[in-house]
C-alpha cells in the first residue's frame, strides 16, 4: 500500500501501463517536458522519451483524430485534453469517428483509446476551466465514461481503461487532484469498468454520486449521522457508462429513497438517467420521489468566489437536500 493523492495515482497507473505494454503512448498539450499543466504526466517524458510522451500543438481535433489513427495501427493511445472545457474542437472526432468505428465497420476495427479530461469547478477556473460536460459523452453510444473519486479507483480504473478494447472518456475532477491522500494497492490494481462502489452503507436514503461529489456526499453522510441520526448510503457510481444498474437498484431497495448528486447542470443531466432507471426498474422500492441535486442552470461556473460558491455543490447543500428527502 502506498499513500497517494489522485494525481499521483493517475501518474502511477500510466507509468505502470507504459512499462507493461510498449504500445501505450501519451499525447496532449504540454504532457511532455512540462509533465502536464496539472503534473499528471510528470517524469514520464524523461522515462519514455518524446515519442511515447508526445507534446502536441494546440489542436484538440488532432489529438483525438491522431489517437484514432494510432489505435487503428495497433497502439493504445492515452490522450489528454488539457481541460474538459477544450474538448469541443475534438467533438467531431470523438462522436462521429471514435465512438462509431467499431459499429460502422461491423467489428473490423476497434479503438483502445483513453481520453483523459480534467473537469469540474471550485478551482476559480470560471466558465472555461470548470466545466462538467460528461453528459455529452454519456449520451454517446460507443463510448465508456469513467469518473473516479478516490486515489485507488483513479489508479485501478485508469489501468482498466487503458487495457479496454474500446474508447473510454476518463473524467478527473481537478479539485480533488491533490485534495487528500489515501491507500492505493501496489502493483496490478485494476478496478473493472462498470461497477459502482458502495462507499458508505446506510438504510435511510441512497446518495448517488461520482468524482468530487463522492467526497462531498461522504462528508454530508457524516453530518446527517451526527446531527440527524440519518444513515445515508453513499453509492459512488465510478463508471457512468455502462451504468451499474444492479448496485444502484439494490441500494434503492435497501433505503427506499434516492438522491442523485452531480455538479453538471440538472436539465438533461446524468441524474435524469439515474432517476429514470430507478423509476422504471425500482419503482416498487421507492418511498419518495427520486430527487436530483445538481449544478444550476447557468452556462458555466462564474468566476468571483461569491458567485462560484453559489454555483458549487458542497456537503451542506447535500445535507439539506437529504433532509428534505428523508422528511418526505
Amino acid at each position, binding site marked *: 500500500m502506498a499513500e497517494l493523492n489522485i494525481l499521483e495515482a493517475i501518474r502511477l497507473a500510466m507509468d505502470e501501463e507504459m512499462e507493461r505494454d510498449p504500445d501505450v*503512448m501519451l499525447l496532449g498539450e504540454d504532457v511532455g517536458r512540462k509533465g502536464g499543466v496539472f503534473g499528471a504526466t510528470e517524469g514520464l517524458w524523461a522515462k519514455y522519451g518524446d*515519442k*511515447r510522451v*508526445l507534446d*502536441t*500543438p494546440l*489542436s484538440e*481535433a*488532432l489529438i*483525438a*483524430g*491522431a*489517437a*484514432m*489513427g*494510432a*489505435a*487503428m*495501427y*495497433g*497502439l493504445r493511445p492515452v490522450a489528454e485534453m488539457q481541460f474538459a472545457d477544450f474538448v469541443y*474542437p475534438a467533438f*467531431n*472526432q470523438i462522436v*462521429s*469517428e471514435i465512438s*462509431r*468505428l*467499431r*459499429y*460502422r*465497420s*461491423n*467489428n*473490423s*476495427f*476497434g479503438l483502445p483509446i483513453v481520453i483523459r479530461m480534467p473537469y469540474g469547478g471550485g478551482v476559480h477556473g470560471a466558465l472555461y476551466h470548470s466545466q462538467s460536460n460528461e453528459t455529452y459523452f454519456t449520451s454517446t*453510444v*460507443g463510448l*465508456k465514461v469513467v469518473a473516479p473519486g478516490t486515489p485507488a479507483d483513479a489508479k485501478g480504473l485508469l489501468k482498466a481503461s487503458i487495457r479496454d*478494447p*474500446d474508447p473510454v472518456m476518463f473524467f478527473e475532477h481537478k479539485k480533488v487532484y491533490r485534495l487528500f491522500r489515501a491507500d492505493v494497492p501496489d502493483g496490478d490494481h485494476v478496478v473493472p469498468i462498470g461497477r459502482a462502489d458502495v462507499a458508505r452503507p446506510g438504510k435511510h436514503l441512497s446518495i448517488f454520486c461520482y468524482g468530487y461529489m463522492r467526497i462531498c456526499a461522504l462528508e454530508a453522510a457524516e453530518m446527517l449521522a451526527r446531527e440527524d441520526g440519518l444513515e445515508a448510503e453513499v453509492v459512488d457510481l465510478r463508471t457512468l457508462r455502462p451504468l451499474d444498474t444492479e448496485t444502484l437498484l439494490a441500494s434503492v431497495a435497501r433505503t427506499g429513497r434516492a438522491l442523485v448528486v452531480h455538479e453538471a447542470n440538472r436539465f438533461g443531466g446524468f441524474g435524469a438517467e439515474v432517476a429514470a432507471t430507478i423509476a422504471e426498474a425500482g419503482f416498487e422500492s421507492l418511498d419518495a420521489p427520486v430527487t436530483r441535486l445538481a449544478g444550476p442552470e447557468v452556462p458555466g461556473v462564474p468566476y468571483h468566489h461569491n458567485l462560484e460558491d453559489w454555483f458549487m455543490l458542497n456537503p451542506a447543500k447535500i445535507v439539506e437536500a437529504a433532509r428534505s428527502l428523508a422528511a418526505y
Partner: protein
Amino acid sequence: MAELDPASALGHRELGLTDEDVLSMYGHMLLARAVDERMWLMQRAGKIPFIISGQGHEAAQVGTTWPMRRNQDWMAPYYRSIASAITFGMSAEDIITAHLAKGDDVSSGGRQMPGHYGAARNNIVSVSSPVGTQVLHAVGLAMGAWVRGDDMVAITSFGEGTSNQGEIHEGMNFAGVHKLPVIFVCENNGWAISVPLERQVGGLSVAARAEGYGFPGVTVDGGDPLACYAVARAAHQRAQRGDGPTLIEARVVRLTSHSSDDDQRRYRDPAEVEELKEHDPIPFFSNRLRAAGLLTDEADAALRAEIKTEINEAQAQAEARPDPDAATAHRWVYAEGAD
C-alpha cells in the same frame, strides 16, 4: 535506335514502370470506371438508392495509389475513392457488395450508406460522412509507425471543398512538425457540390498551403496517371526517408453530378459540362498508350470485354449475398467477449 521507340515517349520507364505496369494501371482505371458506371445503372434500376461517383478521378487515384505497398502501407480514403480502393486491394465485388449493403459486406456489413468504403484486411480505413476527419486518421497512422519506428507510409485523399475544414489544418501542421510519413492527396475537381473553386479556396491553390506547414505542395495534372504516379512516388520515397509529408493537389474533372441526388446542370454551364468529356482521363491515357504502341484496338476491346465479364460476375455474386439480419443490428457497439 531507342529514340525511334514510340513507347519511350510515354516516359514510364524513367519512372521505373514496365510496359506491363502501365497497362495494368490502365486496366485499374477501366475497372474503376466500369464499377462506377455499373452502379449508376443499378441506381437507375432501383437496386441501389444512392451513388457517389469517382468518374474523372481515376487517373489521379490510380496514379497516386500505385506506389503504395499493399498490406504494409495504409490508406484513409474518401467517398469518391473507388479507383484508389481498387488499386489498394478491394475488389469490384467488394465495392458493389458495399453499395448493396449486404450482410457480409467487408466495409460495414450493410451498416453504412453507399460510398463508405473500408477494409481492415486491406489497411483501408472505414470512410465516414463528415468530410476531412480521415486526414487526421492518416496522420495518426503515420504517427503510430513513427513511434514504433516502422517502415509504413499513409496516404489520404479528399476534395478541395474538404480542404477548408479546420481538421485538415490541424493534421497537416502536426505532420509537418514531426515529418510524419504521410501523403495528402487533394483531388481538386473544382466543385464542392455546387460551389466553384473561386468561392472555396482563397488563393485558388490548395498545394500552396503546404509551404506554411513546412513540406512540399505539388500541383499535378490529375488526368495523367503517370504524372500523378511520378509525384506520388517521390512523395512515398520522401516519406520513407523520414523527410516528411507531401501535399499533392491533383487537378481533376468531376464528370458526373456530385451524387445521384444532385443535378449539376442546375449550377454548371451546360457547355462546360459538355466540354468535360474532353478531359476524361480514360480516353486520354488510352490514346497515349496507343501512340506509344503499347495498346491496340483489339487489345483494348479484349481488356474491356474481360472487365465487363468481371463486373457481371461481381454484380451477380454481390446480389446473391445475404442481406443483413436485423437480429445482428445491436452488435459490435463494443467489443464482445473473446470473439
